[in-house]
Every structure is written in C-alpha cells, then in structure tokens.
C-alpha cells in the first residue's frame, strides 16, 4: 500500500482574503450597479473638458431657458437646454459633477482623518481618552450639522473652501463612533495581545495590527459620508449658502432651478436626478461593501 498518491491534507489552501473579497464584490449586484453609475459620473467629471459641448460659464442672455432636446423647442445644440443665463445645461452638469464629487471626497477625507484618529484613540486607549472622545461625540451629535454649518457659512461667507472645511470639521462623528467600536473589538482580539507580547510599540500596533482590520467599516463609513457631504452641500446650496456661482455644483443647480419648478420643471429635475443617481450609487456601493465585508457573510 505504498505507491499511491494521497492528496496531502495540508494542500487545501483556499483563496486569499483579497481574492475572496474580489469574488464577492463581483457577485454583489448592489456594488456592481453602484460602481457602474459612480464610474460613469466620475468619468463624466474627469472628461468634462473633453466631452462638454460648450463652455459651462459662457452666457448667452438671448438664449435663456432653452428646453431640452426631447421637448418642443429643444435642439441638439443644447441637448439638455440652457439655464436662466443661457449657459449650456449639459456642460454645466458635467462640470458640476467635478464640484460635487470634489466636495464629497474632500470632506470625507478631512472628516475621515479627524474621526478615525479620535475613534481609534478612544477605542484603543479607553479610559480617559475614551471619556473625552465620547464627550466630544455627544457634543457633536447634539448640534444639528445643518444648523451649525449654515451659521458658520453665513457668517464666514460661503465658498467652496469654506463649505468643504466646515463640513469636514463637522462630519467626523460617524467615523469616530464606528472606528471606536471597531477598534474596541479588534483590540480585544488575541493577535493584538500577541503583537503586544512580542514587544511591538503602541504606534506599531495601531498602524499594523489595528488599522488594517478596521479598514472595512472605515471604507463603508467613508462612502456613506461622501454621500452625506454631497447631500449637505446640496442643502446648503439650496438655502443659498453653498458653493459660489458661477461654479456649478449640482446642489447649486437645483437651487437655481428652484425658481422654475412649477413651469420649467426639467431645470430642477435634471440636476436632481443626477444628484439622486450619485447618492444612490454611493449608497449602493457603501451598503454593498458593508454586506460584502460583513462577518456573517464569511462562509
């Protein structure tokens, strides 16, 4: 009974975590839909200078409020018509994508850094650090973001930078909350104890043991916060305190289209739908990533 080949038991090596994740992402409908929409929007934003049929800032007061091509009076010169100052709506939408995406990502980056540092510190060190961070979170949560950002923007004066900074400084709460609990969970795991017992410095433990393992929730929160920031900027713009014209953010376009709601509804519906699609895509993506990385989905 010697010369037979038995597959070595140890040979059963499954896919790496990365491979499995990729496979699950590909298999997840929400993620794919979200990713495709988002990719289209991002492409639109990046390629705006090449694709846009007109300059988004060139006005033509004699050619105001041209309806989109599919309605009476529309033409292919301005496929989505023109706005109240005769600017090409499609071109503005494309450049608007740049602004809205920039706001979303820049804000998420700023607040992400603040929130993650706070959350990880609280979760890892516990004790007084945790008390302070929890207190700050409570303070932050008890102030309505929109109210505070309105106040600040109204007082400081609104501009792209101000909006991004203000939202960035305000939207860290969810990061902090999620990172705190994720860190607490990871921190109690044995591999952290093992690293500690191996003599790793606190810094090294935080960076190489904790951070990589709280990445999943971090990504989920980050995507959702991008959506949150875009939405808030739209609300600020709606109330007249978002980015400054002639920069075309989608929120601002909705706000400008507001005056035409009842009679030229497309002026508000088109950017509204774009914004909706963007938020939908980001949310689908975020939810999907949450699903895909959720522990109950491991099998």
């Amino acid at each position, binding site marked *: 009974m010697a010369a037979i080949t038995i597959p070595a038991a140890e040979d059963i090596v499954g896919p790496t975590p990365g491979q499995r994740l990729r496979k699950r992402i590909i298999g997840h409908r929400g993620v794919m839909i979200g990713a495709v929409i988002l990719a289209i929007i991002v492409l639109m934003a990046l390629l705006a200078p090449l694709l846009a049929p007109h300059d988004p*800032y*060139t006005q033509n*007061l004699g050619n105001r409020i041209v309806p989109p091509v599919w309605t009476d009076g529309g033409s292919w010169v301005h496929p989505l018509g023109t706005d109240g100052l005769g600017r090409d709506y499609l071109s503005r939408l494309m450049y608007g994508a740049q602004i809205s995406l920039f706001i979303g990502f820049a804000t998420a980056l700023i607040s992400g850094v603040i929130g993650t540092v706070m959350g990880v510190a609280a979760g890892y060190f516990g004790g007084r650090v945790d008390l302070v961070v929890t207190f700050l979170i409570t303070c932050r949560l008890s102030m309505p973001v929109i109210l505070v950002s309105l106040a600040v923007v*109204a007082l400081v*004066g*609104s*501009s792209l930078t101000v909006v991004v900074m203000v939202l960035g400084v305000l939207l860290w709460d969810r990061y902090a909350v999620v990172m705190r609990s994720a860190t607490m969970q990871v921190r109690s795991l044995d591999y952290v104890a093992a690293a500690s017992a191996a003599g790793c410095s606190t810094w090294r433990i935080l960076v190489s043991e904790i951070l990589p393992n709280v990445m999943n929730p971090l990504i989920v929160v980050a995507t959702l916060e991008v959506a949150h920031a875009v939405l808030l900027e739209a609300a600020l713009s709606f109330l007249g305190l978002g980015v*400054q*014209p002639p920069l075309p953010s989608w929120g601002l376009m909705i706000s400008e289209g507001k005056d035409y709601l009842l009679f*030229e509804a497309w002026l508000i519906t088109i950017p509204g739908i774009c914004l909706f699609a963007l938020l939908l895509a980001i949310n689908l993506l975020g939810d999907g990533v949450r699903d895909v990385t959720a522990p109950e989905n491991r099998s």
Partner: protein
Amino acid sequence: GKADDTLNIAWDVEVPNANMYFDTSRNGVIIAHHVWDALVWRDPATGDFKPALATAWNVVNDKTIELEIRQGVKFHNGDPMTADDVVYTYNYLAQPDNGILNRNFSNWIAKAEKVGDNKVRITAKDTTPLMMLYITELGIYPEKYYKEVGPDGMGLKPVGTGPYKITAVEPGKRLEFEAFADYYDSPKGKPSIKKIVQRTIPEMNTQVVELASGRLDWIWRVPQDQAERLEKSGRVQIINADTFRVGYLALNAAGGPEDSPLRKQKVRQAINHAIDVEGIVKNLVRGSSQVIHSACYPEQFGCTDDVKKYPYDPAKAKALLAEAGYPNGFNTTLYAYRDRPQNEAMLSNLAAVGIKADLRYGQYAATRDALRKGEVPIASLTWGSNSVPDVDAILPIFFGGLPDDLAKDTEVQGWLKDAASTLDQDKRKALYKQALQKIAEQAYWVPTFTYTTNYAISNTLDFKPTADEIPRFWTAKWK
C-alpha cells in the same frame, strides 16, 4: 378670498412686531400705512400734500411748521385723537433714547408744542427741505394707550387711526387686519375689503402654489420668469410695477490698497463700458425695468439723466484698461447679496474684458460691514431710498461723507451739504445735477437699472400698485 371678503396675502419675511417705529423693514412701512395715519398725506399719484390728521398747515420759517389738528378722529380703541397725542408722538420721536429704529424720518425733530386747542407747532433742528415729506411718514400714536402698554404692548396690540386696525398679531407668523368702521373721512378713502390676513411664507414656490390654489389672493416679488409663465397660465393676474429701488455697482474709488486699479478713473470708466446693462435688462430683468445712467431713481426730485453715459462697449473698455496700465485686466472680488443671476451676468461681462472677479455672495449686513471697512473693491448693491421721492434719500448717504461713501470726493460732499441746507428747490436741483454729473464723469458707480416688482394677484382682485412699493390695500376691491 372674495367669498369671505378676506384678502389673504403672503410675505416672505417674518414681521417681528407691528410697532411701526420699531421695524425698519418694508413690511413695517406697509403696516404703518394701514394702521396709522400721519398729519399730512401725500398722494402717490400726484405727489400733492393733502390734509389728513391735520386739516391745515403753515410753514412759519425754515425750521418751524404749525398745523391745525382734525377734530372727531377716533383711535382704534375708541379714544379720540387730540393735539396732545400729536405733541406726545413728536416729542417721543425727538427723544434720543427712545430706542426707536426708524430714525431717518424723525431725527430732524427738535420739539413739538401745543399752541392752541387744536394747533401744534413743530420745530426742526436744522433747515429740513423734506420736512413735509417726513411728516407724511410719521403716524400719530395714542398718548394714553402708549404710555400704558409701552412699545412691546404696541407691537402686539397696535392702536392707530388708520383705515385698518390689527386684530391679531402672531409675531413672525401672521397678522390680521380688519377695516376700521369709524375711520374718518380721510383723503385715503374708506377701505373696501373687510379683512386682511397676512402670512409669512418664505418659499416663493409655495407662495405661488398657494396663490394658484386660491388659498392666497396677493403675493409680490415674484421672479420675472415665473411671473410671465404664471400669467400665461391664466390662473392669476400679474402686475409689473416700478419701484424706487435702483441697482448699482459701487466701486471703491478712494479706499483699498494704494495700487488698487479701481483708484484709476479710466478703470472705473472701463467697467462702466464693460457691463451690458441694456442686455441684462432686456433679457434677464425685463418687465418695465429701465436702464439708468445716474446715481438716482429717475422720478426722484433732483435726479437727472443729463450726465456722461457709458454705452456697452467692451472694446472701448479694453482700450481704457490698457491705457490705465491693465492691458490684461486684473483680478478682483465682487460682493453681492441678492439677484444672483444678474450678478453672474455682470461677472461674465467683466470677465469678457479681462477683469476676473470672484463672486462673494453673502448677507447684506456682512457685505455692508466689509464695505464700510474699505475691504470691498466692487459691490453690487441696490438702494430703495425708503420710498422717498427725492435724491436726498440717496446721494448724501453714498456721496456725502458718511461711512458708505467710497468716493470720498470732497467737492461732491460740499455740493450735497449745500443742497441739504436750503429750501430753494431750484438751487437744490442745480447742486444735485452738478453732483450727479461729477459722479458719472468720475464713474464712482456703475448705475444699472431700476427694479420692478411683480405682483401676482387672484383674478377676482382689483389692485393698483404704486412705485413706492407700498401696497395700499384700502384701495383694493373685489371685482
């Protein structure tokens, strides 16, 4: 609606209270005109002064006027209106520490005294050319009641002698007016509509929807595009009416950094040439808005169009800029607080001649603060002259050396001062003309256009607006 003889109107701003001397807003002025009568009434159509609570008057000298007070007029609470009430009101207004906000019409008063049973003498601090005009704006308060309830009480339960009395005040939310049954035989005429209910609705779309669905009868300040389309829908009537408000770009000609391009006359003139006011008015503002060339509302006393004009001419603008040493233009900032589309249009006009301006869009107060600190290169502003039909309500404020004076032109300041201290109307006119010509020549401003207001009213309502932006509901009727 017509059915319940109630006129439902909406404003977009909250009315803090109904005490006319403690509210400087447009709405306060409107309320004041309905609830309080002044001694004299100025006919908005002709500009003539007519007897109201005073039956006759006599200008004694430069600073003094005597008035005969009408008999048998009742306040809304039933008390009779007497000369004592008049004296009390004027003296109250003359007190520096009374806390009232609306001082423009009252800070000329030195004192008032009773000089006969029904005769009152009012003395001014200085020569006051517009004294009569101011008197028409000062409603008479009931002495007894006001002493009793104070300013706050007055704000919540106002009492006057006007054609409408206020029956309910919910600060910021709604006001209810009722036609005053005992209204005297005033030149204003008796009110026709029984009740007026005012509500605050901040969102214009909501206002329009409420109007279209019959829950409102009267709204105003409807954007031009929306107004045109509403009119076309036939659901409501639209009236486009003039106002005293004019728009302008204030150029910081004297302040700012030493090398500020705006200190150069040529640059300012270039800006004047660069802006296509005509195009903006024709395509964007529309209605009956007119292009203006001087720093005042054309119908105001003292206003003249006989000044240097700057037709739209980008090429010339560029040439002027080049002459001034800015062949490639320059970067600057444009402050603005309303009418975003118009400002964006001007921004693009400026950009076309090489002036790249950032738009700093903010609150009025913030803009004005910055302006007074000299931080603002160009501000896009408007001025409504408090509905006063005289350039005295505009020129001294912006060119008379007050904080809003960016030109700081001592010559102009001198002329304006002279004009303010004489009662000789021709002389005033000449002085104002001189000032306006210099202002235009120096291009301290870019005067743009007059503002108009769109009133949207229900088809059953008969309403005539006036240029001073004071709707007079006592003249409104159901059709």
